[in-house]
């Protein structure tokens, strides 16, 4: 009778431990799924922070360098139009290229809608730059490309041979300056409307660390449970049973 009772007691304990280990395995599985999700989310937030920070500092630097150079170079350009406009035209090209970069980053990284005011503002500035080239310098970018013009110097020489219009230049340049100011106002508004991803980051790190903690605790507990089951199953002898045998 006693011999029959011993395995049943052991078996009961093993059964309970197996159910417990099943629960821990489930917890581990569920937790590892959420861990992967949290890891992906954290990586995305980090990418967002990096892009946001890079965009912010680039915009400030561009505003102080490329965009302010346009305003500086316009005076020299007006003095002897178009022959002294090489530097002005270089700034114009740099701004045009930079605006294309802004649009790419805003749409691809920050999911900015193409109907957003900021997107329209960047388009407006680009269109005005195209107008300055085609109407004031009388040589559109497409035409310059077809003429194989590769440098600002060549462009100015080619433009000088056309019927350039200084009045048109002054009026378009004023419009361009105004639209650039509007663009920066829109950018500042957009930046201030964005939620700071840094506060989100610390919350996500905290959550991620907690998931990690649950992961390692469940793994350790599962290991110890299985070890205990093994010892209980194969390597444990009831003292009474042994005495009797």
């Amino acid at each position, binding site marked *: 009778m006693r011999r029959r009772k011993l395995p049943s007691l052991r078996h009961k304990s093993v059964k309970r431990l197996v159910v417990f280990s099943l629960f821990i395995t489930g917890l581990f599985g569920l937790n590892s799924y959420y861990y992967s999700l949290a890891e992906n989310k954290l990586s995305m937030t980090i990418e967002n922070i990096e892009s946001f920070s890079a965009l912010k500092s680039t915009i400030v630097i561009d505003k102080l360098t490329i965009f302010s150079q346009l305003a500086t170079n316009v005076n020299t350009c007006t003095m002897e139009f178009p022959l002294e406009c090489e530097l002005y035209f270089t700034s114009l090209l740099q701004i045009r290229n930079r605006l294309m970069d802004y649009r790419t980053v805003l749409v691809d990284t920050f999911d900015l809608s193409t109907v957003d005011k900021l997107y329209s503002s960047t388009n407006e500035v680009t269109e005005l730059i195209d107008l300055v080239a085609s109407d004031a310098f009388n040589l559109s970018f497409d035409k310059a490309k077809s003429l194989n013009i590769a440098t600002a110097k060549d462009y100015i020489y080619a433009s000088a041979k056309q019927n350039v219009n200084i009045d048109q230049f002054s009026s378009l340049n004023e419009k361009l300056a105004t639209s650039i100011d509007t663009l920066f106002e829109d950018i500042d508004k957009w930046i201030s409307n964005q939620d700071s991803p840094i506060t989100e980051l610390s919350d996500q790190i905290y959550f991620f660390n907690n998931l990690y903690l649950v992961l390692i605790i469940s793994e350790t507990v599962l290991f110890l449970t299985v070890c205990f089951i093994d010892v209980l199953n194969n*390597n444990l002898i*009831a003292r*009474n049973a042994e005495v009797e045998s």
Partner: protein
Amino acid sequence: MNFYIVPKVRLLCISFFFAFISIILSQVLLAYEKDNIILSHCRKLNLEQIFSYNKLSDLPQSNQIMILDTMKLHQTCISYLPSEVQKDVLSINSTNYHYESVGHNIRIYADAFNSLESQRSHMQSRLLIYLMSFNVASLFVMAIFLHADSCEIEQE
């Protein structure tokens, strides 16, 4: 009813102990990986600041300040660095001209991140070797236990 553990189980316990250490080591390695996500982000932010800083030399001082003020590493990143680094940064802040001090800070952080990354990479490769060694040790002791188990079956 009293239970007692049969003597051969000591070997099994040693094997379990080695396996347990392997598990702990793998968890430490996972923690390293977890922290690497944040550290690589901090390193990128620092690099970004270096690029921005290098563009500032041609700007007038009044304009530089606008950008220099944004060049601060956030607290999450600083928390990974040794406290001496923060002391160095603070000592420079109190003595130097703003543009130069920010440059120094960025370089100090860059050096600190480099050194931290190399330390961690060294540590990770060590941990991997330890992990493999403990796994092998666990299997070896398990083999001895299985031999003892087999002897017992033979005797029965």
